[in-house]
């Protein structure tokens, strides 16, 4: 594909106006919409969706925070205001299937919205990418960009322990033909990046060390030059950790979607 290719990003409103229905709604999330670093992940994922010809749509400006950080901080009122509002929008469009690149949105939409009247099939983009690979819709050419490079995957709490998604992101990384190395604490024992439970939105309590530094040290100890993440908050925490260790020149933090897009030269 050439650089001047334009991509389609249809909204639910446009689709509804044309009497169309997408296969899947891409829930972008606040970080995916506003965080400069994670916007790149959103763009990479949209490019992949375009490339494989998935009929998708986004909510655009109709999307709103799922309420995850409010609920974890203890503000149940605010969470439910957000949730009920979002469910009205989603149900209004008759949404059935949602994919999101944020494990926090994923967990909330999947596990916490049903009790409030929002029943959807929700999958994380790592699972979605795995399905595309399994279906042969994404075929990555081996021996490409990643040949011989070491990648380590950081498990996100809300993907792993919370929802037992451990293998999908790893299977996606396996197809890159890179050398996938595990940190000492991985899968069920994966160490949090320090951002969950609304910690991202305040200073940490006094302690000896920041959690993201502890985790980054573990990632660096694998000798990987790429830390793969699947969460916008892990992305920031690990990137800051790498900077803290003055390794930003040699070690990069990428989301799964970016790695797949890179392998595809998108």
């Amino acid at each position: 594909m050439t650089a001047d290719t334009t991509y389609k990003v249809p909204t639910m409103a446009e689709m509804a106006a044309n009497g169309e229905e997408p296969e899947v709604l891409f829930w972008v999330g606040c970080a995916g919409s506003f965080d400069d670093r994670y916007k790149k992940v959103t763009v990479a994922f949209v490019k992949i969706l375009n490339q494989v010809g998935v009929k998708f749509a986004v909510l655009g400006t109709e999307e709103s925070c799922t309420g995850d950080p409010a609920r974890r901080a203890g503000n149940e009122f605010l969470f439910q205001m957000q949730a009920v509002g979002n469910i009205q929008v989603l149900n209004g469009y008759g949404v059935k299937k949602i994919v999101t690149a944020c494990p926090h949105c994923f967990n909330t939409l999947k596990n916490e919205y049903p009790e409030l009247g929002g029943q959807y099939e929700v999958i994380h983009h790592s699972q979605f990418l795995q399905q595309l690979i399994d279906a042969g819709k994404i075929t990555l050419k081996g021996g490409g960009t990643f040949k011989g490079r070491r990648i380590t995957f950081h498990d996100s709490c809300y993907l792993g322990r919370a929802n037992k998604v451990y293998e999908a992101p790893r299977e996606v990384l396996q197809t890159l033909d890179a050398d996938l190395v595990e940190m000492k604490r991985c899968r069920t024992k994966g160490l949090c990046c320090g951002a969950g439970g609304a910690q991202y939105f305040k200073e940490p309590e006094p302690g000896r060390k920041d959690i993201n530094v502890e985790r980054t040290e573990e990632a660096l100890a694998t000798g990987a030059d790429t830390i793969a993440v699947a969460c916008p908050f892990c992305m920031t925490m690990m990137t800051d950790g790498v900077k803290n260790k003055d390794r930003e020149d040699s070690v990069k933090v990428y989301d799964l979607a970016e790695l797949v897009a890179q392998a595809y030269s998108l």
Partner: protein
Amino acid sequence: MVFFEQILFVLALAAAGWFLTRRIGLIRRAILLGRPEDRSDHPGERLNIMLRVAFGQKKMMTKPLVGLMHFVIYLGFIIINIEVLEIILDGIFGTHRLFAPYLGGVYPFIINTFEILALGVLLVCVGFLARRYVAKVARFQPERHREMGRWPRTDATLILVFEILLMTAFLTWNASDSLLRERGFGHYGELRGTVGSFVVSRFIEPLLSGLGDPGLVAVERFTWWFHILGILGFAVYLTYSKHLHIGLAFPNTYYSDLRPKGQIKNMPEITKEVQLALGIPGADPTEPPAEPGRFGAKDVRDLSWKNLMDAYSCTECGRCTAACPANLTGKKLSPRKIMMDTRDRLEDLQRGWQKTGPDFDDGKSLLGDYITAEEINACTTCQACVQECPVNINPLDIIQQLRRYRIMEEAQAPGSWNAMFSNIENNMAPWKFSPSDRFNWADQLKQ
């Protein structure tokens, strides 16, 4: 003499039974202080979890060596209790090895099995003491974990020493009994020829063989009494100790949380108000709002009964705390302390009831007097503690409810959380961006 011993034994048994019943009643009452929560669904799945996690010790096996050591004690506890049944019946009826004539050749085999297990338990207990005091496993050290102070440390040591003494008494009793049997002394001799020496205690016999018959009888009676009184005393002690997990692990795993770990308990009382506020049909505005009592939890009464059962089931192993990212990096939060504080609060209430009756109120509360805001604020809700617990305790559920109280009742959020809340409220995102810019990321794609 035998008659006198029988009376003494029945009295001891009754006393232990009385204390035990009273303690269990108090603990039951303490657990039922909690809010109701329905955990009667999916009985098949629950039974399955109990069989795998409690009976099968599945989560203990994530650390294979310690898991195996623990399994030896667990197996010993369950199987040696069959022998306790015989000992109790002997005590009541004034008999000696009541089961032996009925079981014939199987009897020595069974006792040999008990002896091998007893030796195993004894060795593992020594190993566990060594882990605490020689290898100094970090999660048990008070220097590293402030909740592992005097009593928790003493409690753990007492349990291990006690088990070593009980097993030693059991083996020594068998040894002295075997010698008396061989000598054909009194009623001991009745089993001579049918029951010989036992597989482990035969190595203790040479130490006792120098004793005369009366001395040997004294050893036999002392160890028999020490062993059974020790077990009865231990049963009562359990109810004050972290060792209560040997009983509560079973119901506690049966009533496990079946939801995905990431799913936080809903508050239906809030849903209704939110639906009314947003003008959503479904909520009946004429219906009086449910009296929620209190949003979140300030004290143990605001938690669910399952949270309180969790607290009594905790054996303070500290796997939760060792996996907690906040604790690992030096923050004050320790999931184990959350559970221990909850139990301490319940025990303090119990003591109060006994002093001044059921209206006891010391003006204290779990949040504030036992657990501080600094601790609960440090939680990343990563669920590592929930994942690690070998008996499916959920410290995160308590933390979450305490946070709700801090935020919704006391409005005591850290300043930057308040900013995040108002951003979500006004800008539909936790940051201060205009909601109309939410879709700008697509501009570069569409050109």
